[in-house]
């Protein structure tokens, strides 16, 4: 595996009319990395991908491939290949002809083409399907042909634009694992675009969370989930309780926040703040605890609450409690004991203590 960056985007802007589809994005993607761009539709992830592929040219800024600027190089001169969302398999060509297309364009000798096409089809477990037409294949098989067609060219970077979107859930899970395994085997840099957070967390080495044309946070799955740098990221990845308030006091690494209605909380800082800043305290539902008895050694955040609603979903129980006035807070308890005893679970209207340690609450800006 080579060192350094496969793709660098430097302050890239793409404007369509009045809208900045990509708004001053800077990111570095390492060689051999499985990198995901994650965000809701319209966040600029697909436009970024299309600029790397060469279907769009940046309005400003620069994109480098292996250290060389490729701003306005047409797609057919970039050693980058794409797996399209709809696969875009050529319907008038057989599977083998589809896979051979890129090699033919590069004027690879006939004999080599045949061998490499066979290898590529073998790699995606489609040996023997070469003579079929794309429409005679299932969705999952078409997906694998699209992969083979791109990988056979040995690109520096493989771009994948929501390639699993059209598959059903079970196949999707299988393909996630297969894609990851394939990437580890060929060692090519994968840039994967998706709006599905679970997909991104499962497969990626690093993730860029995008919204409204900006890359909000770039980091490993653990970093993104455990240390989101803003409210949007915490909200988009997984679930979280948000309590709005102002910073009333600061100490080393943590802050005290009051919501203006008598609630005072303490949470961990992820960025420097000053007293009076408007912030959100973010607490993941599985990182808070609910107990009948008052904890012996009361942590910084502890509140007396009433259970409002209980949903039993098998692996865990999701409890909504009333915290202060008119505020619902979600707590998840893992069902570690196997029992059908009604008393073992929380009931509506019960009183309890809600608490979490300081490090489980993050103080985030909007």
């Amino acid at each position, binding site marked *: 595996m080579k060192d350094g960056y496969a793709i660098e985007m430097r302050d890239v802007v793409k404007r369509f009319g009045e809208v900045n589809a990509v708004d001053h994005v800077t990111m570095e993607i390492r060689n051999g990395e499985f990198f995901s761009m994650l965000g809701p539709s319209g966040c600029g992830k697909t436009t970024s991908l299309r600029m790397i592929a060469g*279907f769009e040219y940046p309005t400003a800024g620069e994109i480098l491939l292996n250290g060389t600027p490729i701003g306005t190089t047409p797609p057919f*001169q970039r050693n980058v290949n794409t797996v*399209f969302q*709809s696969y875009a*398999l050529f319907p*008038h060509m057989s599977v083998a002809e589809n896979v051979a*297309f890129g090699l033919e364009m590069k004027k690879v000798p006939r004999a080599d083409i045949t061998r490499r096409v066979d290898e590529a089809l073998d790699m995606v477990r489609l040996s023997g399907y070469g003579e079929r037409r794309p429409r005679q294949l299932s969705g999952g098989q078409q997906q694998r042909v699209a992969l083979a067609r791109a990988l056979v060219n040995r690109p520096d970077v493989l771009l994948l634009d929501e390639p699993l979107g059209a598959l059903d859930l079970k196949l999707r899970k299988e393909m996630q694992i297969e894609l990851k395994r394939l990437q580890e085997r060929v060692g090519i840099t994968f840039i994967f675009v998706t709006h599905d957070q679970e997909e991104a967390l499962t497969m990626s080495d690093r993730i860029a969370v995008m919204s409204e044309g900006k890359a909000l946070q770039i980091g490993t799955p653990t970093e993104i989930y455990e240390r989101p740098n803003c409210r949007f990221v915490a909200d988009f990845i997984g679930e979280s309780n948000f309590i709005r308030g102002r910073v009333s006091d600061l100490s080393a690494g943590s802050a005290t926040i009051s919501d203006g209605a008598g609630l005072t909380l303490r949470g961990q800082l992820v960025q420097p703040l000053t007293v009076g800043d408007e912030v959100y305290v973010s607490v993941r539902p599985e990182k808070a605890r609910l107990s009948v008895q008052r904890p012996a050694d009361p942590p910084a955040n502890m509140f007396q609450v009433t259970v409002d609603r209980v949903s039993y979903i098998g692996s865990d129980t999701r409890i909504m409690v009333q915290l202060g006035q008119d505020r619902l807070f979600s707590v998840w308890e893992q069902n570690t004991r196997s029992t059908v005893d009604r008393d073992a679970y929380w009931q509506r209207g019960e009183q309890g203590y809600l608490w979490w340690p300081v490090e489980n609450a993050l103080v985030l800006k909007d």
Partner: protein
Amino acid sequence: MIEASSQSQARPATATRAAARTNWRTVLLGVHSALMYVFLYAPIVILVLFSFTTDSFGARLTGFTFSWYTKLLQDERLMGAAWNTLTVALVSTIISTIIGTLTALAMERYRFRGRTGMDALLYLPIVIPEIVMALALLAFFAFMFGIIQNITGSQLKMSLTTVIISHIAFSISFVVVVVRASLKGFDRRLEEAARDLGANEWQTFWRITFPLILPGIIGGALLAFTISLDDFIISFFTTGPGTSLLPIEVYAQVKRAVTPKINAISTVMLVISMTLVALSQFVQRQRR
């Protein structure tokens, strides 16, 4: 008035009367439709039938003969006209298919100022009454020939060339409509995929775009060919003395009387048209 009838749901108690009424309506609709097909096909069947009769007035079935068809082959005037018609159809189809395909690509692939105007210019030949277009072309050629004679002194006349020019002028629009339809259904991502795999624009067009819209182009060409072959009105006004075309020849003879020989030539023209329809349907189906 006829109403939809297949949708009524059976309700056990009152079903019988409702069902009876429904059936009665369906039967009526079926009878009407059957009569319509008789109306559409009876004249064609009669025409074909009476091209084989021995009756020289061509209106009674007195016996069976092929002689009218052999007489067609001996009629040099008719054969010459047929040859002219075929030439016009072939040349105008080739030129209008090329021009029409280029225009369709421009209209579907580009946004430009004046595109709406071009759209109108393309649709007008289809909706305008054929006779108005024919007369306009007649006046235009006379007008231009007059100018040319004033300048160069040479006298030009209506000929097969003027017919071909006119046929191209109305065929282009039909080709454009058909080819545009096939471009509309075209997935542009296939072209992106080709470019992504290293094909330049020229290679992308010939390897991906062209093969995929070819059925549309062939469909457009067949339509242009059929229209040109069958056209009477525009040919009638834009052809010159001495250059006859098959529909004009048939028209001239028909005006005189009904004869089995015209029945025969008409039957031949019918068979050719129907073969072309079947062919174009086949091409369209291949596409799917």
